[in-house]
């Protein structure tokens, strides 16, 4: 399967003692400068030459020689050697092939195998030995290993210490994004009066790829919220500006939406009773008028009942049918953030750190024991129940959570993904993340643990992406984006260049960046803080061609034209064809969505007073839930309507692309669902081209060759019509595509045939556990 190329001549110096490797010696030293590629504001902190990057665990045959640098943004390994055995590399424009952003580093282990010592390096620590080896455990499940056998011992040590220091900053303003943006402001100040140029500034974000000119609403402005109210057709709701300048709350956005019947003055008074002054925030309205609202707990016990009643009344008043409010106490229903974190740690341990073969036998039960899938399921299930309340019972739903900025983000988002097809488009999904995560004050800084204060870390955002993936897996034609998009989005949370995932709240961005601007003499003018690049500006990370991998070829867009007897109709009409299929039967009952509440560990932080709803009412609501789901699942699905997850044990799956993409042993060469994706892309591309030709033919046959024919939504393109059947699977496709596990030192060699990979080579690489820890 793999073409075993002879080992390449390596880069080495004649000044150094001969290495103890099985490399062939290249007597001609290459005298060539290896220069890092740096971003604006990026500086090299330390570097070391003659470093060997290990590619395989049982042979040094494929190792690469080069220079290891530590900058204030990344660690970078610069080499002239091409990556061996790699057939495809999905390139991020901000990073070299061997680079790791500092914010992606989880743990740094230095080893001296002569002295049999190892040390996990924290910031500002001393290292008593000269490291012969550096192992970087990355947050994205990769493991990178460098050897310093031929490097200057002191420089090697210095680089290790620099990496440890710079990857674990003590202050937010030390994150690279500040330096980068500062530089941009300075540069642009020299050119145009203080306004940062181009994409670095506004951060509105282009669409993911090919030709989309839409911008993602960021919900930083009044008008974005106003537009969302109009888009959903919500009546009885208004944009509220009382938090302008963050006068009320530092963890709320400046603009948010509240019931029209609540006056600013009332809100100001009520706000004092809520944890974090986080009063009710409107998320979304159903076309039937039911609204989704999120809020923190009411802290003031004496006021609680009164305020609660006022809020509920106001929400009821905003409902065209004056329907009741259904409250969901997420703290009592769902696992808490510590539990989610614990599950994630176990999952990671299982997927990455445990020896592949040893975990095979007990894989299924080990996976179950991580509880990760159980939690994904719990969030999906609860969200589906709330969909029922909004959609079928016509009730407005209030999500309650202590602070209202963790579980609420996830549940509010999932409910909207299920209910509103707009959020299943790329722009819609991004606007949803802006609305329910970034603006709603999800604490990305703490939860992603960019500053390495681990006690607040929790992968709720990943859990949301995972749950979205489950829906995508179950309804592949309902989403505009692909699973690659979801994986890349997850990776982007660990590149400290974008403002999107860097802060605990919008206010924190303003406050910190204003301080930073003052300290750096940057003139902000009228701007509220520095404008960081937005992650939605995907062109910063990927070429237009690579961004097309974000597009899901299965997607049935509303706008996809379909021709019927000469007139163009929306594809929706032909969906009859699609929907005439039997879509399976109720997945409710025991195996489906509705069984008794999961016996999840409860969060015991706050005890709530009984809900205002009489208990019988709740029961009657729940008893109708089962038939609702049963009926929904018995009908053909409308991909532009509600989609509900199937949540039985057989339906919730491990998101392999995300969690196993760096594991060489798990990679299926020339296989995986991507091979079907590839075929479908070719066909979808052909249909696109034909439809464009058709449009042009119809308008003017002479212009048939004119226009946007060259653009394609698809990464894989048909070279001509009718050739989709003859083209084979491209050699570089694998179940990890577009990622490649080559060079990830999970445990063992990626060399040889898949079989020898599977059976032999059980040699575990120099295990750090066998070494004595220095401390």
């Amino acid at each position, binding site marked *: 399967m793999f073409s075993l190329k002879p080992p390449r001549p390596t880069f080495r110096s004649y000044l150094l003692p001969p290495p103890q490797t099985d490399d062939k010696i290249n007597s001609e030293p290459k005298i060539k400068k290896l220069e890092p590629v740096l971003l604006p504001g990026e500086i090299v902190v330390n570097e070391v030459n003659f470093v060997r990057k290990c590619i395989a665990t049982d042979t040094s045959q494929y190792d690469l020689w080069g220079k290891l640098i530590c900058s204030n943004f990344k660690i970078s390994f610069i080499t002239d050697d091409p990556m061996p055995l790699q057939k495809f590399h999905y390139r991020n424009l901000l990073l070299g092939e061997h680079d790791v952003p500092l914010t992606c580093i989880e743990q740094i282990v230095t080893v001296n195998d002569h002295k049999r010592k190892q040390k996990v390096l924290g910031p500002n620590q001393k290292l008593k030995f000269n490291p012969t080896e550096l192992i970087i455990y990355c947050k994205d499940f990769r493991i990178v290993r460098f050897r310093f056998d031929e490097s200057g011992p002191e420089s090697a040590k210095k680089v290790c210490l620099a990496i440890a220091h710079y990857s674990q900053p003590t202050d937010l303003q030390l994150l690279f994004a500040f330096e980068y943006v500062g530089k941009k402001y300075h540069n642009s100040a020299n050119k145009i009066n203080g306004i940062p140029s181009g994409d670095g500034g506004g951060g509105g974000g282009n669409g993911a790829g090919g030709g989309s000119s839409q911008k993602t609403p960021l919900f930083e402005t009044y008008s974005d919220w106003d537009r969302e109210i109009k888009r959903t057709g919500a009546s009885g709701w208004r944009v509220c500006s009382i938090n302008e300048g963050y006068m009320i709350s530092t963890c709320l956005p400046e603009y948010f939406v509240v019931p029209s019947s609540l006056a600013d003055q009332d809100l100001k008074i009520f706000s004092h009773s809520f944890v974090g002054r986080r009063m009710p925030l409107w998320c979304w309205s159903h076309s039937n008028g039911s609204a989704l609202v999120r809020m923190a707990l009411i802290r003031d016990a004496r006021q609680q009942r009164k305020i609660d009643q006022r809020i509920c009344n106001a929400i009821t008043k905003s409902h065209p049918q004056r329907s009741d409010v259904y409250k969901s106490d997420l703290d009592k229903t769902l696992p808490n953030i510590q539990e989610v974190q614990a599950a994630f740690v176990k999952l990671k341990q299982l997927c990455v750190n445990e020896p592949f073969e040893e975990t095979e036998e007990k894989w299924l039960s080990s996976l*179950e024991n991580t509880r990760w899938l159980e939690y994904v399921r719990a969030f999906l299930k609860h969200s589906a129940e709330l969909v029922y309340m909004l959609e079928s019972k016509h009730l407005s739903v209030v999500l309650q959570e202590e602070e209202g900025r963790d579980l609420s983000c996830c549940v509010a988002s999932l409910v909207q993904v299920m209910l509103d097809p707009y959020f299943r488009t790329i722009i819609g999904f991004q606007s949803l993340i802006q609305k329910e995560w970034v603006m709603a004050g999800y604490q990305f800084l703490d939860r992603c643990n960019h500053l390495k204060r681990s006690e607040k870390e929790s992968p709720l955002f990943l859990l949301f992406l995972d749950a979205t993936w489950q829906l995508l897996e179950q309804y592949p034609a309902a989403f505009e984006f692909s699973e690659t998009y979801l994986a890349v989005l997850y990776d982007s949370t660990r590149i400290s260049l974008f403002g999107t995932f860097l802060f605990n709240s919008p206010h924190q961005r303003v406050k910190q960046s204003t301080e930073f601007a003052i300290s750096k003499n940057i003139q902000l003018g009228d701007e509220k803080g520095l404008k960081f690049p937005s992650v939605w500006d995907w062109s910063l990370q990927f070429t237009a061609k690579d961004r097309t991998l974000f597009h899901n070829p299965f997607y049935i867009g509303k706008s996809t034209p379909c021709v019927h007897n000469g007139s163009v109709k929306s594809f929706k009409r032909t969906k009859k064809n699609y929907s005439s299929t039997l879509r399976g039967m109720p997945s409710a009952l025991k195996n489906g969505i509705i069984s008794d509440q999961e016996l999840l560990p409860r969060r015991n932080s706050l005890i709530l007073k009984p809900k205002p709803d009489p208990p019988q009412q709740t029961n009657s609501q729940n008893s109708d839930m089962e038939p609702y789901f049963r009926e929904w699942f018995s009908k053909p699905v409308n991909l532009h309507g509600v989609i509900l997850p199937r949540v039985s*044990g057989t339906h919730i799956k491990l998101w*392999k692309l995300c969690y196993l993409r760096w594991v060489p042993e798990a990679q299926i060469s020339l296989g995986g669902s991507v091979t079907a994706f590839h075929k479908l892309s070719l066909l979808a591309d052909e249909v696109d081209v034909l439809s464009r030709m*058709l449009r042009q033919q119809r308008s003017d046959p002479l212009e048939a060759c004119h226009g946007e024919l060259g653009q394609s939504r698809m990464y894989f393109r048909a070279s001509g*019509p009718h050739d989709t059947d003859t083209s084979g699977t491209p050699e570089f496709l694998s*179940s990890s595509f577009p990622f490649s596990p080559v060079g990830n030192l999970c445990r063992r060699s990626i060399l040889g045939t898949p079989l020898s990979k599977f059976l032999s080579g059980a040699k575990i690489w120099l295990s750090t556990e066998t070494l004595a820890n220095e401390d």
Partner: protein
Amino acid sequence: MASASTSKYNSHSLENESIKRSSRDGVNQDLTEAVPRLPGETLITDKEVIYICPFNGPIKGRVYITNYRLYLRSLETSEANQLASQFLNYHRFPVAHRPLFAFLNEEKFNVDGWTVYNPVEEYRRQGLPNHHWRITFINKCYELCDTYPALLVVPYRASDDDLRRVATFRSRNRIPVLSWIHPENKTVIVRCSQPLVGMSGKRNKDDEKYLDVIRETNKQISKLTIYDARPSVNAVANKATGGGYESDDAYHNAELFFLDIHNIHVMRESLKKVKDIVYPNVEESHWLSSLESTHWLEHIKLVLTGAIQVADKVSSGKSSVLVHCSDGWDRTAQLTALAMLMLDSFYRSIEGFEILVQKEWISFGHKFASFPTAFEFNEQFLIIILDHLYSCRFGTFLFNCESARERQKVTERTVSLWSLINSNKEKFKNPFYTKEINRVLYPVASMRHLELWVNYYIRWNPRIKQQQPNPVEQRYMELLALRDEYIKRLEELQLANSAKLSDPPTSPSSPSQMMPHVQTHF
């Protein structure tokens, strides 16, 4: 399960039979009962019953027993019960009956499935005979080995007398015969039963020589690789009953590996446990650990791992391979058939797979979901094969070996399952299939990728049922239709336009010609 109610309709069976006899082709739809029947299917009795459906509770209905199956028809027609009755249509249990329905089946198809497999043709496709391998008719009357087919491929250098002597040293006389030959490196997969070594460690010069002859047909590697499908403990234990395995002392030029695959009894127990966790209710809160405790996927993994080893040895290791277990008909068939499926893309087509099934006998538990474009057939194809493995509607899977089938004149007296499938091939085609020549598939035999075949094992549970048809396949078919529609429209438009513009300078005449032209623009 079912409780009988009134019995006054019991005696109607004969009448009904005469009514049915009158109708002809296809599936009969009797007006009075509306029980679909196959040609040759006759009603034996019927009864009013209450069927306790494990998913939907009790359903009043009438049970019909024919010489082929037990058929339950719901009497309740209310809307609430429509779902249930729809589902009940699936519940057709084949009834054990003598003579087997396959011999009474009068179905007619426009293709004859019995002609699908012609051993001579199949060996010719593989390039056999050649100067190392010959076709022998020594077993023409099944006197060498009654459980082997009449036609065998053996080393050119082994005489028929050699074969007879080797047969005495192999369990049930199942001597090593060729299953598959690699088109390029000419290494082979040979299958047989265990050698009759016994407690005393008997040796047989002829057998040793025969294996050496097999080895010598391949000059690339100096060893013959033997895969004993059994766990080594079992292989040793078999010595007590006269069996055993090839020892190092006796077979110098062979390397023996045990593949640790358990026997059919262990597997059957495992499958029973799978049934327990999926029927009638699917284990909910601890699905994964329950599934693990059945060990079913572990068996699948071991078989798959063994097959990968065989395929890899032949393809990358360039060594000929001999596979056996105890008798060489269960695990051996699993291994050789799977290895051949990985090695030879021909077997991944519908006809190729039918030939493989016919040739090697196959128990298929895991679909190759890892390679969605590599197989011409779809899931339905595998399911229908498994269904008719037990249905007795076709002669394909009746009896244990070719000699018995011949005695019973199966090809003359019964219909082949392949007739049914091949006369309706479109239904069983995988739209993503991409024909590839000589591509070896290397599945990853890891629990990380193995999943229970939910669409087969849990298909009766309405709550678990996956979307059918598969939404991905469905979408592909839609796009294919859309493409054809566009092409048609384009052609029409171009015709119309060329009529309008009397002399368009660049207007191509068909979209297929136009496309490359358009593309060169960019």
